[in-house]
């Protein structure tokens, strides 16, 4: 199987959609002449033209609104919001419109739109540019929220997201674009709403998504050296949550720690942990643990920022303290 990085996997999925369906177009800031802020759409303008690769003014609210309208008009828009932090300017369009129009019209209309955006911290971009707001979208009925951790899932999930008839928030982690992985030549998709066990283990379940999956896998290696065999579940889709895969794993291991980049209080880990103890209480050897971001705006300084984010060492230490292993 050919290796490719996550950026190329997403690009490939976008090109396929543009090639296969004239109704698909991409609207975003600097995706054309600038060749994409993260180079995902590099070369697209030249290949598909300015009608389908639309450079937008800096107007996030109207970008999403125009995406919604074009979807109501029968198109299949892909809206690129440069980073998820800027979604704060389009929140009303996403939450009050994209997510609710099907319901408020009782199915007369639907919004087959994908919003691609870049999430996460760790790049020393400071407090306003380092958030993981996909967690909020994962609470909104009417939205589907996806956050892949590797190229295989990224391609499989972008395919499913574009095919989906409802709004999907597709969050790509800025620090994962260069990560490499094998991607089959044969066509495949990764269905929305399905988590995946990325490492099999018997002693403890680590649940994560996006970049934190790699932190969890790293932690699992350290634990392995100590004879603790950790299972790592990659949620992949944050809404709808694949409770089954998570709960099945915990029923087998009896221990669970959820790792996420979002601030610890009120993050997705709280939902996952609550669900686990609701559905597997009698299987638990102890409380379900959570490792999340420190409760501060992201600092610019690299050492401070690193201290604010979960890493393998913090996860392992936390597990020691929690379970004494």
């Amino acid at each position: 199987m050919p290796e490719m990085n996550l950026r190329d996997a997403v690009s490939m999925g976008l090109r396929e959609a543009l090639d296969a369906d004239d109704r698909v177009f991409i609207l975003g800031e600097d995706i054309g002449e600038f060749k994409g802020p993260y180079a995902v759409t590099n070369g697209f303008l030249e290949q598909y033209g300015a009608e389908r690769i639309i450079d937008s003014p800096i107007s996030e609210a109207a970008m999403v609104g125009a995406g919604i309208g074009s979807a109501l008009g029968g198109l299949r828009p892909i809206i690129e919001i440069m980073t998820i932090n800027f979604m704060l300017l389009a929140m009303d369009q996403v939450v009050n419109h994209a997510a609710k129009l099907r319901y408020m019209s009782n199915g007369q209309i639907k919004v087959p739109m994908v919003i691609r955006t870049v999430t996460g911290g760790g790049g020393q971009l400071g407090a306003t540019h380092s958030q993981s707001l996909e967690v909020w979208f994962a609470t909104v009925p009417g939205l589907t929220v996806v956050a892949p951790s590797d190229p295989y899932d990224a391609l499989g999930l972008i395919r499913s997201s574009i095919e989906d008839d409802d709004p999907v928030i597709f969050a790509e982690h800025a620090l994962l674009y260069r990560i490499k992985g094998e991607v089959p030549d044969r066509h495949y998709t990764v269905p929305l709403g399905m988590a995946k066990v990325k490492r099999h283990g018997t002693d403890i379940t680590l649940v994560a998504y996006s970049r934190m999956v790699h932190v969890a896998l790293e932690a699992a290696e350290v634990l392995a050296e100590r004879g603790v065999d950790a299972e790592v579940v990659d949620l992949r889709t944050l809404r709808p949550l694949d409770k089954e895969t998570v709960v099945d794993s915990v029923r087998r291991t009896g221990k669970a720690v959820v790792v996420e980049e979002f601030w610890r209080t009120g993050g997705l880990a709280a939902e996952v942990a609550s669900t686990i103890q609701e559905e597997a209480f009698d299987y638990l050897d102890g409380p379900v643990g959570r490792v999340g971001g420190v409760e501060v705006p992201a600092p610019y300084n690299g050492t401070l920022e690193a201290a604010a984010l979960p890493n393998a060492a913090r996860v392992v230490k936390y597990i020691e303290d929690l379970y004494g292993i």
Partner: protein
Amino acid sequence: MDLDYAQASAFYEQMLLIRRFEEQSGRLYMAGKIRGFLHLYIGQEAVAVGAMSALRSDDYIITHYRDHGHALARGMDPNIVMAELLGKATGSSGGKGGSMHLFDVSRGLMGGHAIVGAHLPIAVGLALSAKYKGEDRIAVCFFGDGAVNQGEFHEALNMASLWELPVLFFLENNLYGMGTHVEKAHAGGRDIFHGADAYRMPALQVDGMDIVDVREGTMRAVERIRSQGGPVLLEAMTYRFVGHSVQDPEAYRDSAEVDEYRERDPLVTFKDRCMKQGLISEDEAARIEDSVNDAVAEATRFAEESQEPSPESLYDNVIDASSTE
């Protein structure tokens, strides 16, 4: 005024239908059969009827929460509208949308939207889809003077003009946004259409109390959009005779102002002119009065006798084929 008999009667009948429908809605609200927010269109009838008379059946219509007039003028069945206001299963959204969210996709009516200013970018997207597909339909977006101060007004007009999209931005300036006079909210003053210059967008102003002026202005605007492509801002100066919503004490305006505008009641003045010119006879006027009263009575009966939505419908149309826990 070059109208033929049929047109004169039809326009008068449509305006009267809206007037009586709204009066009845107000009564049903007081009777507790309509709940939530109810915003009546009384006084502005000439705008919706005049505007719709100049549009094509394949054009898109999108409007705000004060939407009964637009829905009825676009030919939506009063029974279905009234049933929605009463929250019944037979309503246009099965009772899930209510007064502020009227949709009739079969007539290109893409809602009824309750967030001030937010549907303007959606109209831009509808127009984008039309241009993208090479259709010559246009998107007509009705909104009020209060919406002009929302950032999305600016973003939407800029995009539409920049990309030369077929949007008719139809501003119904009734001088108030809730209790705030236009001159206390808009630095540009009472005559908002001048603001279109900033977007190099053609704009015009019509007398919203005169259906003929509205109709002719709309024809000019639509003709320009279809022939040259870009958007137009059309401002209709109008007035609501009743409160912002059904429970508005109207502390912010004195009754003298209201009386003054009631002197120019668009129904009365139009009817008088038509009669003077022999376009509508006494008998015809009486027939119209009867048929409108019958239609409103029938709509009320239909709505009241309709079933409540089924409990299961709560879960329908959140996303495709979804029923969430």
